[in-house]
Every structure is written in C-alpha cells, then in structure tokens.
C-alpha cells in the first residue's frame, strides 16, 4: 500500500500537462473576472484570454523536442502532441480575436465565451497528448461539453438552440460508442494504455482477428469519426455549423476536428497498428464517400455558412486519405493539412463575421453580390481563403493536399489519390461561385454596415500570412510535421 502511494506520487509529472494547466488557470481566472465585471463588458476578458493563449503558446513551444511523460504513462507531451497543441492554440487565438465585436453586434456580450474557448482548447490538448484511452476520453468530454455550450450560446436564437441541442444529443450518443469501444479493447488487452494495447496485440497475434478486438476498433472509430464529421456520421454538421455563432463554427471546424484526428491517429497507428489492413480498407471507403458527399452537397447550398460546413466535411475526407496511407508522408501530411486548414477556414469565417448583418440572414450567395468591389480588402481576403480551400498554389491548401495525396501514392493508393484530385475539381465549382457573385454581379447593397473592427482584421491578416507562408515555403513546417511522428 505504502509503495503504491509512493509510486503514484512519483509518477505525477506536471510538466507533461503544463500547457493545458496554464490554459485552465487562465480560464478559471476569467470566470472570476466575468462575475465581478459589470454585464456586457467583455473586452477585458477577451484581452486576458489572448494573453493566456500567448503565454500557453510560449510554454508549448518550449516542449518541442523535450518530450515529457506523466501520470504513469497516461499523458505524453511529445512532439506529436506539441504540434497539435500549436494548431489548437492558433485556432483559439484567431477565434478569440474575431469574437468580441461579433458578440456585441449579435447582442450577446457573454463573458463566459472566453473561458469556454480556453477550456475547449485544454480538452483538445488532452486528446492530443493522451496515451491512454481514458485520458483521451476525458479530453474529449471537456472539449465536447464546452462546445455544446458554445454552440448554443445565443440562447434567444432558435437556430443556435437547435445547434446546441443537436450537437449535445448526437455528441453524447457518439461518446457512448467511444466508451463501449474502450471497454471492449480493455476486455481484450487488459489495459487502456494505447501503446500497451499495441504490444499486447502484437504479442498475441491471434487476438487480432477476435471479433471483440474488431468491434472495439470499429466502435472507437465511430466515436472519433463523428467528431471529425466523416460520412455517414456527418448529419449534424450542417445544422450545427450554420446555427452556432460564426466564431464558434470557425473554431469548431479547426480545433476539435484536429483534436479528434490526433487521437484517432495515435490510437490507430500505435494501439491498433496490427489491424491496419482492416481499418485502412474501411477508411478508404469512408474517405471517398466523405469527399464525394461533402463536395456534391456543397454545390446545392446557397447559405455560405452551410456551404462551408459541407466543405468542411469534404476536407475531413481529404485528411482521412493521409490516414489510409498510414506512412510517414501521409501522417505528417495530416498534421500539415490540419494546420493549413486552421488558417484557411478560420480566415474564411472571419470574413463572414465582418460581412454579416445582425442575425446573419444576409450570408447567402445573393448577399455577396458585388461584395468584392464595395469591400476590396475583404473581397481579396475571401478570395485567398477560397483559393486555399480549393487547393490552388501558392496557398497552404495546395501544399497540404500535395503531401496527403503524395502519401497515398507512395503507399500504393493511386485510385484514392485520383478520386481526391477529382473531388478538388468538383469543389472548384462552389468555391468559385462565391467569387463570381463577389466580382461579377452588380452590387445590390452598399455594405455600409460592415465595420472593420481591429481584432477581426488582425485575425484575417494573420490567417492570410499563415495561408501564404504555408503555401510558399511549406518545407520547414513539413520537416517539423515529420519530426512530430512517433
């Protein structure tokens, strides 16, 4: 007994969760500030959360190449986790920058927004650095519960309520799948540690084809594929993305999606590597379905937020291609793609944040008629992000797709790469259509309501810098993504 206590105490290593600890401290501090500040004053809270994210960024960067293992091997702050942590922090930073003015415009200056974003980010970090299925689950719950609240933040708006409730009900359901899968794998291997499950399965080869192992793998995959919004678990995405406050949608499509990818990659590669033949043929089909259904359905959308939701489904499909390939290029391609997607997608949503009227009913294709002439800077910014989403060089989207499809070709999945490129061609149609409306239609409005508030503009500029930097000189970041593999 005495030894057990001693061991448990020695294995605690706070350095392994330092970035998320800092975030949580700032989050709780913000909660206290919100309570004692007068209602509706949220600017201070947004500045403090930006400071918190910046401090965490420094703490995170110091962990690069200095891996830490903590809590008896339940948490590992390795390069893989650090790379993803950087993605989450960038996503949160860009989101917070654009939020303050938006919340005031929409009439919900709710201070709780900022701590919730920080807690979501902390949860995402635990998902990326969790080396035990329970830690990953804990991270997923912290992330999800904060996101449910964020999606339903505008409690007087029916759409926002619908988004929050739908996300909560379906999310809770998918978490059940995840837990069931965890329980089955625990039953097989007698441990929830991801690496130990891998060791057990490679030592007991005949357990690989045991139905319990396969079922556990499938159920786990369902839980994560839901969060990533892969077809056929994508039905919640359009409604939630459309109904949630725009900055929340931007954040949701980048941070949590990357977190679910991080956990899925770690579990499938490290824990269930022995089943690769099974899961890669499964993900092959899902990736193709996801790309086609996402892109084809996006063509029919007239609401831009909804269109970006379907585009986000399609992009999850592209990223899955890298996981099907499961080689160094493919997996580091996923890391690169998630970073690139964070910049281009959050940037596009930041333009929507500025372009929207109160209530956001004007964010349709028609509503963007002549927008590019009346608001040249925003028009150019939107075009850059749309080009990046299409995957046109020299933007981040091109480099990301290049690495992922190169990984697929290296692994022998030539058809998958061809289908992926074909889908990029389909996506040209609906991305270009936005630009056609922006530049080739007569303006019907003077867009006088568009206020260029500094936070959102900084967010857009940072996103442009990110998109172009990753597109023009992708080599350095790609090297880092390769170093991040385990």
């Amino acid at each position: 007994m005495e030894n057990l206590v001693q061991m448990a105490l020695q294995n605690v290593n706070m350095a392994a969760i330092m970035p998320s600890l800092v975030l949580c401290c700032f989050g709780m501090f913000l909660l206290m500030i919100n309570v004692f500040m007068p209602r509706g004053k949220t600017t201070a809270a947004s500045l403090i959360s930006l400071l918190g994210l910046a401090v965490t960024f420094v703490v995170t960067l110091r962990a690069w190449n200095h891996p830490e293992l903590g809590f008896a091997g339940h948490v590992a702050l390795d390069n893989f986790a650090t790379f993803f942590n950087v993605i989450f922090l960038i996503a949160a930073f860009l989101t917070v920058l654009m939020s303050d003015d938006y919340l005031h415009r929409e009439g919900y200056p709710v201070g709780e927004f900022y701590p919730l974003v920080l807690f979501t980010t902390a949860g995402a970090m635990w998902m990326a650095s969790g080396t035990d299925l329970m830690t990953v689950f804990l991270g997923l719950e912290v992330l999800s519960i904060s996101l449910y609240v964020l999606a339903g933040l505008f409690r007087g708006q029916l759409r926002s309520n619908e988004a929050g409730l739908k996300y909560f009900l379906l999310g809770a359901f998918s978490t059940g799948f995840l837990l069931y899968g965890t329980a089955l794998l625990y039953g097989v291997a007698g441990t929830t540690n991801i690496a130990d499950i891998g060791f057990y399965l490679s030592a007991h080869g005949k357990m690989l084809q045991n139905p319990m192992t396969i079922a556990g793998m499938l159920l786990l995959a369902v839980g994560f594929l839901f969060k990533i919004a892969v077809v056929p678990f994508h039905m919640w995405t359009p409604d939630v993305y459309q109904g949630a406050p725009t900055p929340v949608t931007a954040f949701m499509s980048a941070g949590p999606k990357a977190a679910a990818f991080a956990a899925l990659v770690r579990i499938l590669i490290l824990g269930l590597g022995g089943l690769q033949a099974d899961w890669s043929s499964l993900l092959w089909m899902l990736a193709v379905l996801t790309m086609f259904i996402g892109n084809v359905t996006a063509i029919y959308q007239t609401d831009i937020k909804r269109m970006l939701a379907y585009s986000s489904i399609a992009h999850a499909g592209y990223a899955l291609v890298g996981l099907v390939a499961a080689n160094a290029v493919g997996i580091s391609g996923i890391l690169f793609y998630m970073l690139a997607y964070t910049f281009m997608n959050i940037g596009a949503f930041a333009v929507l944040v500025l372009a929207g009227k109160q209530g956001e009913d004007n964010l349709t294709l028609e509503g963007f008629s002549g927008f590019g002439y009346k608001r040249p800077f925003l028009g150019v910014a939107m075009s850059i992000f749309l080009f990046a989403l299409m995957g046109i060089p020299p933007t981040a989207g091109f480099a990301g797709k290049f690495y992922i499809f190169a990984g697929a070709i290296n692994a022998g999945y030539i058809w998958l790469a061809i289908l992926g490129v074909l889908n990029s061609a389909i996506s040209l149609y609906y991305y270009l259509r936005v630009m056609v409306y922006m530049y080739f239609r007569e303006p019907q409005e003077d867009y006088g309501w568009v206020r260029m508030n500094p936070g959102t503009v900084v967010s857009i500029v940072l996103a442009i810098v990110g998109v172009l930097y990753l597109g023009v000189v992708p080599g350095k970041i790609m090297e880092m993504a390769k170093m991040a593999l385990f």
Partner: protein
Amino acid sequence: MLDSYLPILVLIVIAVAFAVGSVIMSRLIGQKKPGEVKLAPYECGMPPVGSARERLSIKFYIIAMLFIVFDIEAVFLYPWAVMFKRLGLFGFVEMGVFIIILLIGYVYVWKKGALEWE
C-alpha cells in the same frame, strides 16, 4: 485478476436478493387491509394535494446539479482523509487545488444568482 472483483459481485447479489426478497416476502406473507387512506399516494405524511403529475420548476434542476458537484467533492474527501498522513504535503496541496477549483465554481454560481430562488 477477475478474482479480486468477487467480493463486489457477492455484495451486488446479496443487495439485490435482499431488496427483491423483502418485497416478495412482504407481499406473500404480509397482511393486506387496504383502505382509502392507505391507498392514497404518500406525500411525507401530509394529506395529498392535487395531482402527482405536476410540472416542476426548472430551478430544482439547477439545485440538483449543484448538489451533485459538492456531493462528489465529499466522495473524494473521504478516501483522501483516510490516506491523509501517507499522502503528505503533496496530497494536501492537491486537495487544496481541487477545493479551490470547486470554490471558483461556487463563487460563480453564487454571483450569477443561481442560488436565489426568486
């Protein structure tokens, strides 16, 4: 490994058997003299007022949620108190941090007015 769970299984079996057994036995051998008062719904000994299927205020839900939070705190405090000496300073600080986190939540709900009934 599964052997260590045997006492829990035994406990579950005894608990279920006792509960089910008591209900069945009292039904089988107990005396039954039903009356109007006896068949009425039990409302803490008061004469029943109105229908039992009323809509309850959402405020009960908040109170119940807050209760669970602090109930769980107590659940964690008991084993900690038993092991207090062995855990030493580290355990003391850890529990302090845990309680401070809950305290922040408490201050939050208090200032937000979640504890006020009207």
